[in-house]
């Protein structure tokens, strides 16, 4: 009793074929009565609206509450522009570094067998289970003036903590597993047959990777990049510990939101917040579209952030 159907769902103005997962036709025997069903749907919608949807709406409401003029002047204010610039700069460092790491780790883990593999995966997951504040703290202990390398850094006049390098490092730590997490399960299910075939046909190792492996994982990789980027731009706790909140210098967008909010500059705070919220929405839409096109494989890795 199963059917596969292909339905066409218009998405963001263009039409994307949605491969639906195989759904069973459920008969009266295996479903609930209409009353129970309606109340469960009601509970789900109410809970999601109250706890998830409403906060999203209020961000945009507060941002535009005082008109478009207030909104744009808040966004073009020099400190805000500096914060946006720093956030872009940080993610320009963090995302490529974590992509390279993710690809290397996925290649080693998914294409080869070696002892200690599952332990290595656990270690890669570690930053997910560490509080962002603790993540910031460990870099303070490492590079701060009282830290392990503090004296040496001071002697050479290098600033890490309360400076941009610290922000970048803390962000790398927090977003460390995202790309690897998305592509390892996919590469594992794809196995090594195609790569081996390419090698027997005379392709070099690197061109095998470029022409066989990469096309096979491109959507999962893209999704990993999107998640990594969203988190990198939005990270608050870890960055808050290492940045020192120097206006115009080490303030990222989330930190700037906090400052504006604490100064009761609510409209400005929500204006900056709305930009990040928009980024989150883009990420979610991209995820929905990618999952529609790419299906099940994406779902496996993305449960734990």
């Amino acid at each position, binding site marked *: 009793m199963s059917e596969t159907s292909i339905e066409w769902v218009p998405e963001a103005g263009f039409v994307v074929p949605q491969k639906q997962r195989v759904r069973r*036709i459920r*008969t*009266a*025997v295996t479903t609930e009565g209409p009353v129970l069903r309606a109340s469960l749907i009601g509970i789900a919608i109410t809970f999601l609206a109250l706890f998830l949807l409403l906060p999203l709406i209020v961000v945009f409401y507060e941002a535009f509450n005082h008109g478009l003029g207030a909104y744009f002047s808040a966004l073009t204010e020099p400190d805000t522009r500096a914060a946006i610039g720093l956030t872009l700069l940080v993610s320009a460092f963090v995302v490529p570094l974590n992509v390279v790491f993710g690809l290397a780790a996925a290649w080693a883990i998914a294409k080869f067998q070696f002892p200690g593999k599952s332990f290595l995966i656990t270690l890669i997951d570690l930053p997910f289970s560490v509080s962002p504040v603790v993540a910031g703290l460990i870099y303070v202990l490492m590079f701060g003036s009282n830290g392990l390398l503090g004296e040496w850094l001071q002697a050479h006049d290098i600033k890490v903590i309360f400076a941009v390098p610290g922000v970048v490092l803390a962000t790398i730590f927090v977003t460390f597993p995202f790309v690897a997490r998305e592509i390892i399960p996919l590469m594992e299910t794809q196995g090594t047959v195609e790569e081996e075939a390419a090698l027997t046909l005379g392709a070099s190792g690197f061109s095998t990777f470029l022409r066989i492996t990469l096309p096979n994982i491109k959507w999962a990789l893209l999704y990993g990049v999107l998640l990594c980027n969203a988190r990198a731009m939005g990270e608050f706790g870890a960055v808050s510990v290492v940045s020192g909140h120097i206006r115009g210098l080490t303030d990222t967008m989330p930190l700037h939101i906090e400052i504006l909010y604490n100064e009761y500059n609510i409209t400005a705070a929500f204006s900056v917040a709305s930009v990040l919220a928009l980024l989150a929405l883009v990420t979610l839409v991209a995820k929905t579209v990618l999952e529609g096109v790419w299906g099940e494989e994406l779902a496996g890795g993305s449960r734990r952030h």
Partner: protein
Amino acid sequence: MQIRVVDIVKQFDPRAKGPVLDQINLNVVGGELLALLGPSGSGKTTLLRIIAGLDQPTGGKVFFGEEDASGLRVQERRVGFVFQNYALFKHLTLEENIAFGLTVRDRATRPPKAEIRRRALELLDLVQLSGLGKRYPAQLSGGQRQRVALARALAVEPRVLLLDEPFGALDAKVRRDLRLWLRELHDRTGHTTLFVTHDQDEALELADRVAVLSQGRIEQIGSPDEIYDHPATAFVHGFIGESSALRVNAREGRLFIGDRPLSIPLREERPGWGRLFIRPQDVVIGEKGLSETGRPPIEAEVLSLWRSGPTRRAELALAGEAGRIEIDAPVATPLTPGEKVPLHFKRGTFYLETPAA
């Protein structure tokens, strides 16, 4: 208990061409073991599910004995249903799995705890899994799971036993053993049993009677001998056992391949084109130049030869549009591809396709 299926129609999708089940009538005698045999898509599983109450028919009725069961919900039908993949409850032990049907009864009809446990252990014995009651399904082999599924179905003292491809997920050896075991169990417990299979060996070996389904219709119901030796329709003949179908013409009370008459008797006199089904063992290679009718014999060209167990098989092409035929060709008979040999047909069954006006 007798099962009667009367005029059952099932149409899943009103836009589809034909219904999944088309006016099915079936009588399962009390105590009988009946097989529903057919290719996938023939509607056999749907029929079984309708009898169980898992699917609702578009029309028609189901009787258990004299009682009209059509209005009963699945919970009220008291059928023992064994699913293709067993559908055991993974979080319950074997004992709890078997006892499930008794423990979900309401207080008034639920046996006391000790009695439920006694019944579960008794059934574990019956399916030869004594001592494994505390295990979980994940710790069992496929064949063992199958037997637990059967014990669980028997625990509710079902009026009839319904099995959906009961051996479908097992490997060949286990499948044979379980088949014999199920037959013995049936003879001992005497439940009216209906099982669905796409495997003709299974159906012919195990069942008292076989109902052959195709495209939502019952093509034939009969004992395994009747089904094999006297197929009622061209479909049944083609589906059961091995045979080749030749395109032949009936006229003047005889069958002709081209202009050569055959000695196979016709059941009816109506003339027209049709298909003649011939099993490989019912053809012999005759001696050249001879014919029982005095005319030149029917000749065929040897296309290929291959070994098949103790004997050898040959594929031959008949002259004209009659088609190709596969026959037993004893190893002792010298044959080479390309050679033309005379054929003698000992037996065959003719099905008229287009009666001449």
